[in-house]
């Protein structure tokens, strides 16, 4: 039933493109309800302060202001605190210290941007002017913004129930074995590694339009969400906004997410509640400045690590101590990022028997930190891959050789940090990347660059990550508050066209195309006969949404499972009508045939037969619609090798990425065009983190990088063309053999970039982002140490 032009593996152009290239996309801010009012939030200008009083009178007196609402009213109406949905216990068994987070603060504000009130007005401009007129009296408190400083004795305490600002002190692996491994080592590499804080910055700012229907006591929320069903569940079960059957959440076209649109923020909660309070539709759209102070940030780890090697370069022990900054409140999945999504990947592509990691998560007076493209795995990859490259240089070995000596080559492979790698061929990815990057020709290129006064460097990164977090029972055992399966429904219409309702959500990933491809291939139908429905809790039965590169491995697997059921029924109907055995039925070319005969029914005739129900097998229910829930048996493990080549101008520290080569193992690829696009975007974000991006707070907790004038987003001229390749092994864990491709680029690329720059400048001591200033300073340190010798 191969469907070469449009099936699995075909570079099908996207079905969804036309509306986007003609300006007909429908994003949340494009929605306009009748009787719509606008929300503007009154936000704390202080990083840490007690709220003494709120004077709303001037704002309320303005014509066109509908109401001004505060946190006392919100909590008084029973709206619950925002919660973190993954319970991570400390190593002493005590539960994590989760501080209370009200959508509108009542007693205390804990970061610049913390909302204390909301103005509802007839126009957006008026709402914003009136918000300025709300007078809040604050009593300022000392603030702390750095994770390590938050743990010091003199640091101010941010939440009463988190002594010393410690959320948890967690560990994984065997400390005694790791110590013994290090003690037995011939060489130890020791590094302090910072993973810089970044802001996800999807180009569409967050937005919400909430409507309360008084007669039905029903709410509708349009929102910029990666997971509308999760939003409904949390809004209903934890925030008590409305019971689930009285709340419809629609995430229409969403302009990028990268993790930042997983969470249910104070603004959506407040808009829903305010629509009930005012009996108006309430719309809020963030501007970019507001996004910088409200969208969850990413990364922000400080680590020290020791890796020991024997005389053959085999890793004997690896020990990591990490402090993770979770910001002022615990966002929805924040606790899992520096633990189960980070430390569990610290074995990398390597056979490491003795491994231990300790992670302390802390509160600071900054925007909450949660998952950002890669979520924990980029932090793990950056740490290991900088360690490996540095260790190779210290031991005088080729970085690729040191890695290869430690590669895992037998699968399944159980790591000491609870992962079971199911498949992979790390040598193949390394070889493919080295050939594509022409590593052999590097010395000549380096010599040529030197003639032009440029320092040319080469850096590797051999990454492994984990996608499609599962199975649900296992993640539940680790503290997750939700299951991580996916659901799908396959509806074959009476005319034979097909609608796929999926719990995955596309916000740039091209699901309307790739999901249709697997259906077109399976039933050998034209792609145009298949439509994908997603993003509306009234249409799709349930779904866990799209993050963690799960839509292929988990979302598509649910569709396959539902298609299995549809196919079984189609076979039964055809066998009955054509008087043949089910085993002899083949589905091909728009027909359902009896193999080896000229007996056939059109695909549409099967659809019609199912719905007319005039001639179905005895006891068969009419209709042709099946649903399925798919819960994976394991994580999937995308892996690969990235090689970055840079040129540094020693006079200015300016660095250019002159070549970036990727060899990825994503398992089965449905649409190479789309997968390559995912890699390109991930690489851009990873290179951005490595060279340009940095969220900066001053010591008082004021955000310095609060706009695109200050936060350096990568532009077209900052980035190269990418050389993207695939060397795949099939994932044994799901029916299509898929591993996931959405985050790999952002996970694997930062260490490759920094390894290349440190190679060029001859100094391993360089932190992200490698701005011209940082690179220049690192170069001066080399010059100074040479002068001292």
């Amino acid at each position, binding site marked *: 039933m191969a469907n070469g032009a449009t099936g699995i593996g075909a570079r099908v152009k996207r079905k969804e493109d036309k509306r986007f290239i*003609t300006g007909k996309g429908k994003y949340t801010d494009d929605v306009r309800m009748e009787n719509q009012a606008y929300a503007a939030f009154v936000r704390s200008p202080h990083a840490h302060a007690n709220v003494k009083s709120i004077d709303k009178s001037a704002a309320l007196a303005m014509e066109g202001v509908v109401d001004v609402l505060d946190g006392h009213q919100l909590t008084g109406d029973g709206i619950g605190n925002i919660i973190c949905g993954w319970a991570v216990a400390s190593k002493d068994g005590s539960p994590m210290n989760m501080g209370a987070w009200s959508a509108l603060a009542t007693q205390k504000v804990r970061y610049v941007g913390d909302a204390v009130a909301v103005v509802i007005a007839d126009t957006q401009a008026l709402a914003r002017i009136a918000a300025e007129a709300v007078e809040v009296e604050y009593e300022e408190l000392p603030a702390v913004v750095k994770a390590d400083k938050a743990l010091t004795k003199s640091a101010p305490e941010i939440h009463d129930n988190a002594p010393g600002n410690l959320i948890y002190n967690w560990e994984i692996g065997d400390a005694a074995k790791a110590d013994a491994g290090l003690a037995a080592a011939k060489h130890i590499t020791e590094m302090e590694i910072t993973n810089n804080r970044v802001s996800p910055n999807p180009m*569409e700012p967050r937005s919400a339009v909430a409507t309360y229907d008084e007669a039905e006591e029903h709410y509708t929320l349009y929102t910029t969400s990666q997971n509308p069903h999760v939003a409904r569940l949390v809004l209903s079960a934890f925030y008590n906004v409305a019971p689930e059957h009285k709340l419809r959440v629609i995430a229409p076209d969403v302009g990028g997410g990268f993790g930042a649109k997983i969470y249910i923020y104070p603004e959506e909660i407040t808009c829903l509640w305010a629509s009930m309070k005012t009996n108006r539709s309430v719309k809020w759209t963030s*501007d970019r400045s507001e996004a910088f102070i409200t969208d969850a940030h990413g990364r922000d780890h400080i680590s020290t690590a020791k890796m020991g090697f024997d005389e053959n370069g085999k890793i004997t022990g690896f020990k990591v101590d990490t402090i993770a900054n979770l910001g002022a409140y615990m966002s929805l999945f924040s606790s899992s990022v520096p633990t189960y999504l980070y430390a569990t990947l610290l074995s990398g592509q390597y056979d490491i028997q003795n491994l231990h990691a300790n992670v302390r998560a802390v509160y600071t007076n900054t925007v909450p930190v949660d998952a950002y493209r890669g979520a924990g795995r980029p932090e793990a990859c950056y740490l290991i891959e900088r360690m490996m490259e540095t260790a190779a240089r210290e031991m005088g070995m080729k970085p690729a050789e040191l890695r290869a000596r430690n590669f895992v080559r037998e699968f399944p492979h159980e790591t000491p940090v609870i992962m079971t790698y199911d498949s992979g061929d790390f040598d193949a990815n390394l070889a493919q990347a080295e050939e594509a990057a022409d590593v052999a020709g590097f010395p000549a290129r380096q010599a040529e660059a030197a003639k032009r006064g440029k320092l040319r460097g080469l850096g590797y990164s051999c990454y492994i990550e984990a996608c499609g977090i599962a199975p649900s029972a296992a993640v539940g055992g680790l503290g997750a508050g939700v299951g991580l399966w996916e659901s799908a429904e396959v509806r074959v219409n009476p005319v034979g066209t097909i609608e796929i309702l999926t719990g995955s959500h596309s916000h740039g990933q091209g699901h309307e195309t790739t999901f249709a491809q697997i259906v077109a291939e399976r039933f050998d139908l034209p792609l145009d006969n298949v439509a994908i429905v997603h993003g509306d809790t009234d249409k799709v039965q349930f779904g866990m949404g799209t993050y963690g590169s799960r839509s292929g491995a988990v979302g598509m697997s649910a569709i396959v499972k539902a298609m299995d059921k549809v196919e079984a029924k189609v076979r039964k109907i055809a066998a009955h009508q054509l008087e043949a055995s089910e085993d002899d039925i083949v589905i091909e070319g728009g027909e359902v045939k009896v193999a080896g005969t000229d007996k056939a029914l059109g695909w549409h005739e099967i659809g019609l037969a199912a719905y007319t129900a005039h001639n179905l097998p005895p006891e068969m229910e009419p209709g042709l619609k099946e649903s399925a829930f798919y819960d994976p048996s394991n994580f999937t493990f995308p892996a690969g090798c990235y090689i970055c080549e840079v040129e540094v101008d020693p006079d200015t520290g300016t660095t250019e990425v002159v070549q970036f080569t990727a060899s990825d193992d994503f398992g089965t690829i449905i649409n190479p*065009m789309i997968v390559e696009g995912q890699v390109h*975007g991930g690489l851009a974000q990873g290179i951005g983190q490595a060279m340009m991006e940095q969220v900066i707070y001053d010591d008082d907790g004021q955000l310095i990088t609060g*706009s*695109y004038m200050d936060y350096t987003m990568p532009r*077209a001229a900052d980035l190269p*063309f990418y050389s993207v390749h695939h060397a795949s092994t099939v994932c044994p864990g799901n029916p299509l053999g898929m591993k996931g491709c959405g985050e790999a680029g952002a996970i694997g690329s930062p260490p490759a970039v920094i390894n290349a720059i440190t190679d060029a400048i001859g100094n391993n001591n360089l932190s992200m982002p490698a701005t011209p200033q940082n690179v220049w300073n690192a170069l001066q340190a080399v010059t100074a140490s040479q002068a001292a010798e």
Partner: protein
Amino acid sequence: MTKVKMTVNGKAVTREVSGETLLSEFLREDLRLTGTHIGCDTSQCGACVVHIDGKAVKSCTTLAAATDGAEVTTIEGLANGDLHPMQAAFKEHHGLQCGFCTPGMIMSGVDMVNRYKAEGREVTAEAVRHELEGNICRCTGYHNIVKAVQDAATKM
């Protein structure tokens, strides 16, 4: 309030606007042409780019009143019936993912190619990257956008 008259996507439009109304706001809210997007508040991201009298302009930093008498083209009015070659090239080369920056990218791309053609300059990859300085994309890593603009240049 000021009375403004302009041509938007070939149609004459007359409206009363307040002096501080931005063109982006006027297009999105008054005319409901929501293909023009707002991605920032510092005139950096370029999601709002439209053409005023044939030139690419950021509509978020243009007052509606200042465009009185002008001919404005938005993403919705770029093509006559079929897709504009720039639109077609973005689809062909997978030059978009979430689609939010895309209208601005396309409008900037068209303007760039028109200028380069008029001046007889070659639309190199380097030139495209330089010209897109005022348009930010977070999804594509620009690789396919650059290819799309270069390809469209051969067809415009």
